[in-house]
């Protein structure tokens, strides 16, 4: 089994998905989904360990040698991202068991969990594949399942926001397909490594820069980089709580990974940054995302929506890191992938708990929740501190690397913007804290603490966001090595 582990990481969920669909009972389907999530966590951890030990793992699907067949190619970056996805899946699925039972009708639950497993499989497939067209296929699996889950939100606006997401997501995917086609026509191959070898021969050609442009635009649509982020706030706001937590922590992360993969592995940093001057585009956009979108978040009164805008701003941080094009910058980007997954997951899950009990996440409805739901709000504050970037939380580690990357390049202004961004996070997190702790609750409503099955997963992420903030050596080492691999500084 062990030599087939790369394939099993993805195909076990793919086997379990139809089984969940056929199970017909919500509980059984949930059990199957849990099995799928935990299996992938196990597999992702073993793969990461194995990659650390013995380098890149290559696995030829169907036994066909690349570039003739499709291969899975797992280096540190992909193993790390796969681990993020799997870990978040494993933590959110117990949570989903309770929250979905309330938000989605029982007879739809089996289908819901099927979509959940499919999304997991799709994201993992993107993370470890070594074939560009295979990326597209798995991107569509994850996108379609995401659409169907978001549309299940209780507010009718869930439908329109899903439609908006579907349109923008499909445009993004089509752009990616166009880019892949243009690369193919100039090189005759779809394998990433093969492409990386053959692209330099035709780089001076006009077609490749255009392919690069289309891929970049397509992927940035998927990862919701400003100004292509319009779908994200709506989708995150109206989706069922568990879905928001799962998606916010995984799907944009995988898109960021794709960006890394295309920029560094396939096109190479020399082409991406010296010839295409990528940083000239990405850096301003990232900075605007950090400042402008954080400002929007400050004025938002729906807390889920506030957090969604904050996600757009945080994506700005990741892209900012990447836009330096240095090992330090990419390390910052990768480590923030992980860190942001932990803290935003926890924040959205805390809001899910609030939703579960009071049916709303409007700021004015949350008065006095600090007393009524102490554990939930403590989780919110804990993860919020991380978002602000208080030391000994993961958010600080991200900022540490990001600012370091900026200063190493002499970009003091950029470092300043990063800090201003985290202060803006302070403002919007603190708005919630003040309402929850400084206002008296509505005495008419008896509000009790969220159920343990939701609190425990939330707290797992909160504790993790402190744990990996206090001891960030592991994550930082992996991220640095991954960045070095991507930039080719290491064999």
């Amino acid at each position: 089994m062990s030599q087939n582990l790369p394939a099993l990481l993805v195909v076990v969920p793919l086997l379990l998905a139809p089984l969940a669909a056929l199970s017909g009972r919500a509980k059984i389907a949930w059990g199957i989904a849990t099995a799928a999530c935990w299996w992938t966590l196990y597999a992702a951890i073993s793969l990461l360990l194995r990659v650390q030990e013995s380098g890149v793992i290559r696995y030829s699907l169907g036994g066909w040698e690349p570039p003739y067949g499709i291969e899975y190619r797992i280096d540190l970056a992909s193993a790390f991202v796969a681990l993020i996805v799997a870990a978040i899946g494993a933590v959110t699925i117990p949570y989903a068991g309770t929250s979905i039972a309330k938000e989605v009708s029982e007879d739809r639950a089996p289908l819901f969990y099927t979509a959940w497993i499919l999304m997991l499989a799709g994201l993992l497939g993107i993370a470890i594949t070594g074939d560009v067209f295979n990326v597209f296929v798995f991107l569509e699996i994850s996108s379609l399942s995401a659409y169907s889950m978001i549309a299940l939100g209780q507010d009718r606006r869930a439908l329109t926001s899903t439609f908006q997401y579907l349109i923008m997501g499909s445009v993004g995917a089509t752009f990616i397909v166009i880019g892949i086609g243009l690369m193919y026509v100039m090189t005759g191959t779809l394998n990433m490594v093969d492409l990386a070898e053959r692209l330099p021969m035709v780089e001076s050609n006009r077609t490749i820069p255009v392919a690069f442009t289309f891929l970049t635009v397509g992927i940035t649509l998927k990862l919701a980089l400003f100004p292509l982020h319009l779908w994200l706030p709506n989708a995150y706001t109206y989706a069922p709580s568990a879905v928001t937590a799962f998606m916010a922590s995984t799907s944009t992360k995988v898109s960021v990974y794709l960006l890394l993969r295309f920029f560094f592995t396939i096109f190479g940093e020399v082409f991406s940054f010296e010839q295409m001057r990528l940083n000239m585009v990405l850096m301003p956009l990232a900075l605007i995302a950090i400042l402008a979108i954080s400002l929007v978040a400050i004025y938002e009164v729906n807390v889920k929506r506030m957090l969604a805008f904050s996600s757009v701003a945080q994506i700005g941080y990741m892209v900012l890191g990447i836009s330096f094009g240095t090992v330090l910058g990419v390390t910052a980007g990768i480590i923030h992938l992980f860190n942001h997954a932990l803290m935003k997951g926890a924040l959205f899950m805390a809001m899910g708990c609030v939703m579960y009990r009071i049916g709303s996440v409007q700021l004015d409805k949350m008065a006095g929740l600090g007393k009524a739901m102490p554990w939930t709000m403590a989780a919110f504050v804990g993860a919020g501190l991380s978002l602000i970037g208080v030391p000994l939380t993961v958010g600080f580690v991200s900022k540490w690397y990001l600012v370091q990357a900026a200063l190493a390049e002499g970009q003091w202004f950029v470092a300043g913007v990063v800090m201003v961004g985290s202060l803006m996070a302070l403002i919007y997190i603190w708005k919630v804290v003040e309402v929850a702790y400084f206002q008296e609750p509505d005495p008419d409503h008896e509000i009790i603490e969220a159920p343990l099955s939701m609190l425990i997963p939330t707290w797992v992420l909160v504790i993790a966001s402190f744990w990996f903030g206090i001891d960030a050596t592991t994550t930082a080492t992996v991220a640095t090595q991954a960045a070095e691999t991507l930039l080719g500084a290491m064999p």
Partner: protein
Amino acid sequence: MISPTEVVDIVLLILLAVTGVAVIRTRNLFAAVMLAGIYSLVSAGLFVVMDAVDVAFTEAAVGAGISTVLMLGTLALVGYQEHEPRHTPLLPLFVVVLTGGILVYGTTDMPPFGHPENPAHQHVAPHYLEESEHEVGHIPNVVTSVLASYRGYDTMGETAVVFTAMVGVLLLLSRGPLPRRVHHNGRWITVRPGTTREELEARMLAESGDEPEPVDGEGARG
């Protein structure tokens, strides 16, 4: 010198353009759907001209067949008429022209259409054409051997996508018992399935005279 196939190619392309523009212009959605079907059919023809018989077959079955049926089914539910656009289409026009312009710029360095020496035809494809007979066995249709074996994993993904679509559509559209319409005090009230009698009575008491909000079909067929 222009060969007959090239003439066909050009004619079909022009036909497609005309159909496309007609789709934009018409406000009748039924016509638009039909034109989209025709668009698929014509492009299927074009695929045949360009030797992509499998693609043509699929496009005809899906684009002209299934897609049209689904769209007509939708139209039956949502109505046939499109409203006048209310904003000036300047921004979309700009985006489209920019995108198209960049693409055209990208093609200017491309090898000419159909040239056998194109890099795309030099690297992996010849391996399939030459070796599939030994490697996969006697399957003359190379598309099939690539689809099902060399890139079988993509096809598995594709099957999963289809399955995902079904999961999604059923999540959205399936419903068990339809909402009932109950006559009360001279008005019709829509009652969601699963409403208990007590809830219903309480609601009737509370009802002030507004038509209830549109009902969401909860419950699934399974």
